């Protein structure tokens, strides 16, 4: 009995020592080494890909923002973002999806409401959006709620509204969208996309420059 207790204690002691040594290797040295390399080679990326416009940081090119006025291109809905529930002295951006099921009536209603809003917002005199024209990404929330991009179809659909609200020609805004449309990587990886923040910065520069 005594012997087995001693053996167990000795074994647990070895386990603890192994854990501590491996914590130093994989939990201290490894992340510090990667951080060192990352900060030396890609400081901008490693610190969040922040974009500056007119000397001010206006966000990260990777993180989608909400709350653009209708003068600007609209992002995807983000109904799944969380709110700080612990450590509430902070107001952190909490990523998240709605997790609503494909047959949940709440989701059906959210999609239909979003579609009606997209149609209403983007129909301007001389250009009426048909409900069937609205792409799926315009009426659904993304996985992170921070999707920085929209599909080229959704950007295209917003061109007439944006042109009207900014006093620009439709052709000029279309060209702007084209310039900010990213194709698939290597021609087949991922989906074509338009980065909303970058597009809106370019739009603001264009209107400010007149």
């Amino acid at each position, binding site marked *: 009995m005594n012997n087995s207790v001693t053996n167990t204690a000795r074994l*647990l002691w*070895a*386990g603890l020592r*192994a*854990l501590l*040594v*491996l*914590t130093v290797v*994989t*939990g201290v040295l*490894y*992340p510090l*080494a*990667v*951080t060192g390399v*990352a*900060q030396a*080679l890609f400081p901008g*990326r490693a*610190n969040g*890909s922040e974009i500056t416009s007119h000397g001010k*940081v206006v*966000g990260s090119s*990777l*993180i989608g*923002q909400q709350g653009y*006025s209708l003068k600007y291109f609209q992002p995807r809905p983000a109904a799944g973002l969380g709110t700080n529930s612990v450590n509430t002295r*902070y107001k*952190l*951006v*909490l*990523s998240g*999806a709605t*997790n*609503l*099921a*494909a*047959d*949940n*009536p709440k*989701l*059906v209603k959210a*999609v239909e409401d979003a*579609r009606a809003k997209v149609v209403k917002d983007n129909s301007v005199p001389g250009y009426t959006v048909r409900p069937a024209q609205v792409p*799926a990404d315009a009426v*659904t929330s*993304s*996985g992170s*709620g*921070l*999707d920085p*991009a*929209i*599909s080229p179809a959704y950007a295209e659909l917003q061109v007439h509204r944006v042109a009207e609200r900014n006093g620009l020609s439709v052709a000029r805004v279309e060209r702007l969208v084209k310039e900010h449309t990213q194709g*698939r990587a290597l*021609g*087949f*990886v991922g*989906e074509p996309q338009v980065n909303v*923040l970058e597009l809106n910065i370019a739009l603001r520069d264009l209107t400010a420059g007149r």
Partner: protein
Amino acid sequence: MSPVLAGFLQLLALIGVLALVYIPFGGYMARVYTSPKHLRAERWIYKGIGANPDAEMTWPAYLRGVLAFSAVSVLFLYLLQRFQGMLPGSFGFSSVSPAQSFNTAVSFVTNTNWQSYYGEQTMGHVVQTAGLAVQNFVSAAVGMAVAVALVRGFARSRTGELGNFWADLVRGTVRILLPVAAVAAVLLVAAGAIQNFSGIHEVGQFMGGSQQWNGGAVASQEAIKELGTNGGGYFNANSAHPFENPTALTNLLEIFLILVIPFCLTRTFGVLVGSVKQGYAILATMATIWVGFTLLMMAAEFSHHGPALQAAGGAMEGKETRFGVGGSAIFSVATTLTSTGAVDSFHSSFTGLGGGITMLGMMLGEIAPGGVGSGLYGMLIMAVIAVFIAGLMVGRTPEYLGKKIGGREMKLAACYILVTPTLVLVLTAASMALPTPPHSMLNPGAHGFSEVLYAFTSASNNNGSAFAGLNANTDWFNTMTGLAMLFGRFLPMVFVLALAGSLAGQRPVPATTGTLRTDKPLFTGLLVGAILIVTGLTYFPALALGPLAEGLA
């Protein structure tokens, strides 16, 4: 190019890259576990542990090493969270509650990475980097060690010796996981994943005002989270978060990292048992199921059945624009057919059948290709069962790799495959029968049941993904999923190591003309069939109540 074609091409590219590394990387891992030499850094580590890496262990000794190391790990990680409030470098985040700390500690030590917490508002730098990420390495290395011990059981004869646990643990970490993770982490940063130790800071916004973000060693954790088939996200949105998975290319890279060790370990197995053809037969079984599931998933998601998805005109709810339906479908299958559980899109909002495919993937026992190590030993157990079934059909004593599959071996294999179904079905039934747990469901009807079934399937199989609408941060779910993860991880390991000991002690049986050839396509077919039938019969009633009811409605 249509999104469907782009999806296929991404799958093909993935297969191509995996095929390229299969022989060199599988062979490298075989050398790692057989080389008589120790690296200088490893000698220092052994000195720190106080272990002799050359001492051979019997199966009970090997198991004791696994259990002692894991027990200490659970306790350490639990205490780290309980004392977070006092740790520097933690944004001043408060300590985590006891039930949630227990759940999270068990979750990361068992290679599950089920998360009932919100990463960005709960865990500071120290817990993430020196606690959770460490377990991403070592829990994976433990899985590989157990798999290698089982392979030694097949490869060795008339001995009780299965190798040295400490040496296998350290070598897996230092020679396999660390170098690959380091390279992958730098690639992730190059594409935009963050890697810093900044505190919580304000970042300006386009329309004015600002957002609050926390920094973190995200890329270094992301790399090992995928490579070690762990899956615990730094952020709540996991690999859907742009700071974890910034582009479509990193998405493919992460899927590659998830799959590379489990697939290549079949080569390691082939080399160690002296017949790479045996490795190919296992590989073919894994690949058949993986490709089949991926194609089914793409079919389900591209056809976007379900009222809300029909209304939207595409299955984009819970999916990111940059990955699209194709990239998300490939990721979701890779993560649920391995024990990863990372997500780049939210399975709860998939089509009913798509959600069912993710569940079935886990229910197969995560063996195609499965978690690092656990996939290989799970598949070898199924191979033992398949040769037994074949033996019954022709009335011969079954053999596998020159070892007799007798009563003792079959009992151990049968115990192995009974563990997870028992946990999943009993705990799901209990949750549905009790008055309070169903309050955690987000969605009504069949999908609500699926959320609970998914939770226990994920926990018991050490996956960690979720139909994340379920509010799992209750005492019931924290405790029960915690127990499911513990038993789902370590009971099977007991049976695997006991089987390894029993096999190693045998004298080899020479192959005759009557021996079932286990390196032929016939055996692969038999094995696929055995896997699907055993699992299908076990889980079909539960699946019918959840995803099938939803998908066929």
